[in-house]
């Protein structure tokens, strides 16, 4: 209605109170809009799902009289309930152990057989595309690294590097099945790589398992890393038993095995295997143990193991990289999960993080185990300046860094402020 038209409306129909409308509308809104979102952290919000994409879910939270729109990255969401239907999200937080979609062996077998024989939904919309120079026959590469020529290198350098290219890679690999029809060893290579793309890139565990098992049936069976991948599929599909069977058949350990045991809730098993691994590769073993403890929220032990990695002088060939990883994980742990403000002495701490146009310097003041203030000491940003007000305010409100980023969406500036604060607090923690 145009504003001047309001004057034409008789006053009585506008002004008459209709008290009964309020409870009816409330009732209706609860019945119709009663969505729920459950986070990995265990928090639940009531409201309605506004938008859902592959990366994030926008949720309108009804609180008290009003509502606020929040955006969550999918990896932080365990499940959403829409119109009474609960749906587990496939991702780190939605492992079967957390949600409880356990399946019997027969059900898993049926699932694999069903998925394995039907094309995925993206099949028709994905063209068969690959560089003209690519050799599809799995010839053993010679000469320098050339992803435009060698199929394996193409998968590693192009498909794995761009998760959105998963369908394109899978389609190409399906094509190579026929190309290499008459050479069993090459055919098996195609199957294994299909398994890899379905599991690691597309997270389609039923089809992953299908193709890994096809490869298993060929001469030579499966090597350890492929077996772990198959076990992971079984676990993700809901059968811990099948996964455990595959894993137990082996005596050799690697970090992937440990991680899977840990994911399946077997912390003791994971830690004991990590100790075995640590005898030969102390860095890999301690890192795996630390990650397992962290996953099970035993932060004190996790911190100790990360520290152990950092103190090592020798280890596997990738010691330097493992140390960097331990350092990054330790910092995130201290800041986001095990932030203990009582361990931070009173004082003002500064840290920097690269923002949109340059480094952002943040000044955090802690007093009596409370974050008193977060100030932006220096910056060169030219956009998203609202983050400079909103993020510090939320950090102080929440007295921590968890879930702060979930609200604003992922702007570079917001994340830089958050990470600089995290760095400052983690470094100050005793």
């Amino acid at each position, binding site marked *: 209605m145009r504003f001047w038209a309001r004057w034409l409306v008789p006053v009585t129909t506008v002004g008459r109170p209709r008290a009964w409308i309020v409870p009816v509308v409330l009732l209706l809104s609860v019945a119709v809009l009663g969505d729920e979102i459950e986070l990995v952290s265990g928090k639940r919000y009531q409201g309605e799902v506004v938008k859902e994409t592959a990366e994030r879910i926008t949720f309108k939270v009804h609180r008290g009289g009003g509502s606020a729109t929040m955006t969550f990255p999918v990896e932080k969401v365990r499940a959403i309930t829409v119109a009474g239907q609960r749906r587990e999200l496939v991702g780190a937080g939605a492992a079967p152990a957390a949600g409880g979609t356990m399946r019997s062996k027969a059900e898993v077998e049926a699932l694999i057989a069903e998925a*394995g*024989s*039907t*094309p995925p939904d993206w*099949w028709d919309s994905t*063209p*068969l*595309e690959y560089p003209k120079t690519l050799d599809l026959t799995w010839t*053993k*590469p010679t000469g320098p*690294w050339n*992803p435009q020529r060698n199929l*394996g*290198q193409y998968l*590693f*350098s*192009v498909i*794995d*590097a*761009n998760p*959105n*290219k998963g369908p394109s890679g899978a*389609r190409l690999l*399906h*094509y190579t*099945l*026929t*190309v290499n*029809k008459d050479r069993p060893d090459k055919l098996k290579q195609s199957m294994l790589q299909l398994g890899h793309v379905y599991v690691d890139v597309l997270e389609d565990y039923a089809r992953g398992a299908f193709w890994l098992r*096809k490869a298993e049936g060929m001469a030579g069976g499966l090597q350890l890393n492929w077996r772990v991948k198959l076990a992971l599929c079984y676990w993700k599909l809901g059968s811990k038993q099948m996964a455990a069977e595959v894993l137990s058949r082996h005596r050799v350990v690697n970090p992937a095995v440990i991680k899977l045991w840990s994911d399946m809730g077997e912390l003791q098993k994971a830690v004991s295997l990590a100790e075995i691994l640590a005898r030969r590769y102390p860095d890999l073993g301690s890192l795996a143990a630390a990650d397992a403890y962290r996953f099970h929220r035993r932060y004190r032990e996790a911190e100790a193991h990360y520290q152990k990695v950092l103190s090592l002088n020798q280890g596997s060939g*990738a010691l330097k*990289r493992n140390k960097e990883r331990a350092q990054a994980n330790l910092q995130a742990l201290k800041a986001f999960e095990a932030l203990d403000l009582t361990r931070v002495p009173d004082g003002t701490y500064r840290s920097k993080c*690269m923002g*949109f*146009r*340059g*480094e952002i310097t943040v000044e955090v003041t802690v007093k009596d185990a409370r974050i008193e203030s977060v100030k932006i000491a220096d910056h*060169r940003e*030219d*956009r998203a*300046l*609202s983050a400079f007000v909103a993020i510090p305010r939320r950090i102080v409100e929440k007295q921590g860094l968890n879930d702060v980023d979930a609200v604003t969406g*992922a702007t*570079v500036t917001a994340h830089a402020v958050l990470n600089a604060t995290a760095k400052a607090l983690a470094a100050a923690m005793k």
Partner: protein
Amino acid sequence: MHLNLFLPALERSQRGTADEPPGAILRAARALLPSALFSDPRSGRPGLLRRILKALGPTWLAAPLRRLTQTVCLLLFFVLLLYVVGAHGSPPFAQAREAKEIIPAEFFLMLDPLVSISTALAARVWVWSLVWAGVILLISVVIPRGFCGYACPLGTLIDLFDFALGRRMARFKVERRGWWVHLRYYLLTGVLMAALCGVLLSGFVAAMPLLTRGMAYTLGPLQLGLVEGWHVVPALSAWQYLSIVLFLAVLALGFLRPRFWCRYVCPTGAVFSVATLLRLTERKVTSSCIQCGRCVEACPFDAIKADFTTRPAECTFCQTCGGVCPVGAITFGGRWDTVAPRPESPRPTEEIGLSRRGFLTAGLASVAIAAGLRASAVSRSLNTSWVRPVRPPGSVPEEMFLRACIRCGECLQACPTKALQPMGLESGLLGLWTPRAVADWAGCDPTCNNCGQVCPTGAIRALPPEEKRVARMGLAVVNQRTCLPHPGREPCQMCVDQCRDAGYKAIEFLRVHVELDEYGLPVEDSGFLAPVVVAEKCVGCGLCQSRCYAINVAERRVLSRSAVQVVAGPGKEDRLMRGSYLKLREEERRAREQAQRSLRQESDSTDTYLPDFLR
């Protein structure tokens, strides 16, 4: 017919004669408003309104409606420039502007008839703002040169300058006559001749582009700096300072005579003067004239000569003369109305006539300038090392762009990230002050279509946001020698993140420098993820380049120039004169699919999800 818009001098009513009965409006006003506001004709005591106007100044008292209109127009100009166009709000920028744009942001530029006429001549196309030129010229048939007297914000600004500074300095004052008095006609001739030769010069001298550019180069950065901080204001180039100096020079002409620019130089005013040939109304002086000479003194445009005759081509209908006339001898009405004429005055008018030599000189000079500029432009396009400028999204083809861009600076003011900056002489004199996207400074925001929406001539087409998003301005090219991950210097993925966040997803990763284990297999996570541009998805917005420059060049100093550069040129940009960019994209997509289908036909029988031999 009367068109008297002035406030006549207050006369005490003579005893014994009847007052003229007041009009309907005045009667209604008297009935509704307190009587203290109104003058009393019997005692001759001025009312509050008159006293307020008098305090504002003699011209306010004489022609309050004109001064009020001028004030409103000047304020409107600043609101449009600084609020509607200049205050960008937050993304989506297209909606932020639309919400504020009740009156088109380029309103005054549209009204300047020289802008649209010269553009249409130079580019030989229909420019839609010609409609507005037609409207304003039609209005000026009824109110001759009314734009100059009532609406022109540059004129009002000059009035303000003359009031504040010009009248205080007598040293530079010049006589009423001199070689310059018809300069505007010669300039107009020159501009139109150059336009006929395909070179648009009106942007340098027409009133509205001159004012808009002057304000966009001075108040624009000032506003941005004060509101958002000085670090987001791009440094002004020497050529921008030149533009500012020229603008100040236009104001400083007021030291010579009040409104010197408007009287003698402004070619836009000359267009209106020519239009007065068709005027329906004009100023008349009746027999009650006492030859006091107040009107000659009051006239800001030298339209009243020493013999009290009117020069309609100069008269802007400001009607100040009517207000200052003590005997009410001046009236504005139909051109062919008869009034009791004023007796002839013997005083000489000392006028200078239009000279054929002036027109010839202006015409020939402008043709020569145009030819020289065109020749330099041609020689440049033959030079292979010349770097083509990246133009705003939706710009018409370069040749047409240079013929249509009026260099008003409105797009620069409208650009929320200041990615658009004026050129110097990199593209020759022809390209001076034309907008170019400087990706080192900022990228073109994917939610914004402001530049095309405010362009008064269509040099940048007004595309809806979704179409602007797919209009290619250029193509990002990664320099594989300097880009940090490519030679294995260090990991960096800012351009990829930037492109993904903007929604284009035109930069993909390629893993390079992969380490191999003892079996010759690649080590997980080894090597670097290096950026690769997917040409068919890239629109050349420059977000990637701006990030690489801001961090790797300006902040960390690990590079001397951004490793990803947006380049323009044939095949790298779409510059459609007309037709939809969306359709163009759709056609390209179909062509690609066609090519794919032919590839697939070879493998059709074998390209199945689950080959039969594996069932």
